């Protein structure tokens, strides 16, 4: 009886492995493969949008040029992915130590209806002090997202609320505003921190 059960599980496990392989093929090489090449973000110098930071100061892409920059999209009513990204970033910045002070770090809201300047100020205060919160008018956020080639979408939930689907990658730019690389959501620290160092080093190269 017990042996038969074990056999059954073995067969099920084999089936699961087969299915996983098939799904993997379908999504990577098969008909379900995504469109090749995600479009890369524009250089910051070619973007154009007007927003407000969490201290009420007017900001735009030009605010970021001159220092290496890290930008990510999110919203403060996000219970899982956004606090996790903010915690990850806080950890990366801690690992970088003093170098982190040379960077712009921007959390850009995709939910300005709920993320007022005050809401952003309250929220970013709980994370690394280098993190700035930017919000503003819907059309300006749409222009920012277009520049970063990021996407977001409002999705209704049960009970009349809504959540936001959004690009969860972290974008890295050098001090001249050129795009350097992207850190994917929840990428381990041993990959993320060297990518940030690269953005920091390109600043040094640009300066000499």
């Amino acid at each position, binding site marked *: 009886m017990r042996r038969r059960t074990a056999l059954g*599980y073995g067969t099920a496990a084999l089936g699961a492995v087969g299915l996983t392989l098939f799904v993997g093929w379908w*999504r990577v090489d098969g008909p379900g493969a*995504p469109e090749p090449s*995600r479009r890369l973000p524009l250089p910051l110098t070619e973007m154009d949008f007007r927003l407000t930071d969490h201290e009420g100061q007017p900001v735009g892409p030009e605010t970021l040029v001159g220092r290496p920059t890290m930008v990510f999209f999110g919203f*403060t*009513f*996000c*219970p*899982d*992915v956004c*606090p*996790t990204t*903010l*915690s*990850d970033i*806080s*950890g990366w910045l801690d690992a970088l130590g003093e170098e982190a002070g040379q960077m712009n770090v921007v959390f850009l809201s995709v939910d300005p209806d709920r993320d007022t300047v005050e809401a952003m100020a*309250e*929220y970013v205060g*709980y*994370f690394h002090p280098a993190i700035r919160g930017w919000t503003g008018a819907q059309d300006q956020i749409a222009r920012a997202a277009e520049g970063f080639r990021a*996407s977001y979408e409002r*999705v209704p939930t*049960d*009970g009349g*609320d809504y*959540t936001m*689907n*959004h*690009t*969860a*990658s972290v974008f890295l730019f050098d001090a001249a505003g050129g795009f350097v690389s*992207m850190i*994917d*959501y*929840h990428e381990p620290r041993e990959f993320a921190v060297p990518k940030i160092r690269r953005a920091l080093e390109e600043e040094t190269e640009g300066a000499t």
Partner: protein
Amino acid sequence: MTKLTIPLLATLVSLTLASGPTLAGSEDVVVEDAWARASIGVNRPGAAYMTIRNTGDEAVTLTGISTPLAMMPEIHESKTNAAGVSSMAPAGEITIAPGEAAELAPGGLHAMLMRLQEPMTEGESFALTLTFSDGGEVTVEVPILGIAARGPEG
């Protein structure tokens, strides 16, 4: 490996025998490393994480959660697609095979706590009840860590 497995199997078998005929097994569920992040006020939903381990020899199905802390608690799942876009949706029922565990961890499954009745304050804790398809319930006390916590250790 084999040296370890045989006594382990023997223990499992004797435990099963000792506990007599079992029904559908939610009494064999063990919840480990439960934690939650503090909230800012009550307007934003909270999230709690844990490992739900099925130590029995029957599959168990988690059908729902409840807590005095939130009017609308639900298991949700975050997913990130190939284009890097994250989304979140109710996870539905979760079946845990014998000897397996469901991991509720940042960026994946989580207990989403909507309609908070009071703020989630760091240092406090709250009761969360898991309901299974056999009618069994498991209640766990969830410690509330800081808003920037990354795991059960803080």
